[in-house]
């Protein structure tokens, strides 16, 4: 019994140290893990892949620094998919803080493609291949107004250009010209796109979710309100797998590289819970 007495008195900081080491080691000595793609990520990939020529992929960046490590790999994988398939992208945000992260992700993937591009045809040019529409308060305005006119809400884009003068926005008037809207979010934004924009205008909605809120969003996936889901870093790794295997787009796969560490950490947490409960059972029986 003394062993468990000691075990339960371990200082909190030792546990922090253990979990830190458990996560760091697989990062330094990575093992390659094949990621199995599940239905939600596959259906989102199919929905984005089947966007017609004259429509855009609209991406709502709704994550701030707090959930960036989970959401950014999703945004990068989605952008690689769109740019490789020459699908026009319109990016926006319902809040202020995510805008800088939208710009960060867009710049990163644009540089990746332009570094490899020889001709202007296969390079990514702002205004021709994608536009960052920016932010307009409050969320209810873009949610309802973009069904009538996108350029009404975002008359100037993030850089100050007139939106309807940009080549990418020619022929793109409202939600009827949006193939699918994917909301990459750490909060409830995907629910608003379903509740407001989809109910009123029938726009297809997909979502990239942090794993925390994911279990509450499956009810909208089961009814078909969400055309597909990326759930947590695992969902990002699945989408990265699809983009690399199906479209041969090279690029660092941050989420997939994290899988070995995630495995180690999950096992460690499970062991902690088991030890904790054994000690608890022992103490309760005496």
């Amino acid at each position, binding site marked *: 019994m003394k062993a468990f007495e000691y075990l339960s008195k371990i200082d909190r900081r030792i546990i922090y140290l253990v979990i830190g080491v458990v996560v760091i080691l697989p990062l330094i000595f990575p093992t390659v893990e094949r990621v199995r793609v599940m239905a939600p990520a596959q259906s989102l990939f199919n929905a984005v892949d089947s966007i017609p020529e004259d429509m855009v992929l609209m991406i709502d960046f709704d994550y701030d620094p707090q959930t960036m490590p989970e959401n950014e790999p999703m945004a990068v994988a989605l952008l690689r998919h769109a740019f490789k398939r020459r699908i026009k992208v319109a990016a926006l945000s319902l809040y202020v803080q995510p805008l800088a992260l939208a710009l960060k992700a867009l710049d990163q993937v644009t540089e990746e493609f332009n570094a490899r591009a020889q001709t202007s045809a296969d390079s990514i040019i702002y205004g021709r291949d994608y536009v960052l529409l920016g932010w307009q308060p409050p969320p209810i305005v873009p949610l309802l107004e973009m069904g009538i006119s996108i350029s009404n809400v975002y008359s100037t884009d993030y850089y100050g250009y007139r939106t309807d003068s940009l080549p990418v926005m020619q022929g793109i008037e409202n939600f009827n010209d949006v193939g699918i809207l994917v909301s990459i979010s750490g909060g409830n934004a995907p629910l608003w796109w379903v509740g407001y924009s989809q109910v009123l205008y029938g726009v297809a909605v997909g979502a990239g979710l942090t794993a925390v809120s994911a279990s509450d969003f499956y009810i909208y996936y089961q009814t078909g309100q969400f055309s597909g889901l990326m759930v947590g870093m*695992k969902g990002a790794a699945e989408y990265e797998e699809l983009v690399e295997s199906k479209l041969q787009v090279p690029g660092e796969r941050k989420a997939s590289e994290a899988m070995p560490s995630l495995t180690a950490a999950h096992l460690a947490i499970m062991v902690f819970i088991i030890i*904790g409960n054994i000690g608890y059972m022992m103490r309760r029986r005496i």
Partner: protein
Amino acid sequence: MKKRIPLLLVLIFGIAGIIPYYSQYPLVQNVQSFIRNDMIRIIAAFALVLGLGSLLKVHFDKIRRHRENWEYSWVLILSFVVTAIIGLFGGRTGGGMLPTSIGSFVFNIQVIYENVNVPLGSTMFALLAFFMASAAYRAFRARSLDSTLLLVTAFIVMLGVLPLGNRISHHLPSFVQWIMDIPNVASKRGIGFGIALGSVATALKILLGIEQKWLGGTR
């Protein structure tokens, strides 16, 4: 007068918010676009600035009264002023009146955000992994049948989402997908109905002026 006007406005604009679902008549749509674009969009921008005003007021009071940790309020105010100046006068991606680069060293608002806000914000939440590990060891107990069922499901899901889970048995990931699609959807949908009814009831009471707490909150 101080109550009747706001309550009347909340009812009028509440009905204005309901209308687009039930009519797409061109006149109605133009009025809706006017309300959204030319009224609500401009007014709401000030609401955010209001939050900022009260934040600065709290920290100025803290400094004046030398309350605990008041020195750090200076850090908050100074960092706000510096980033605001660089952002407002330097432009969102540089190129404003204020030069935002000296030679190859760039310091526009985007670079500051990526190298100050991002590390601070994401590390703040990365702490949670440590708290989670410690709580897992010392707090998460199978105290009752309910919490035992919870922990067993959690173990299955935690294994199933990993590539390791797929190697243990390729049925495991599909079983986790089944847990998410059936029992999880059933319970979250049942809970969701209650929350949806509650939020509709609250919204109706606000519009009809029965729920007036939002008035009091601004005393």
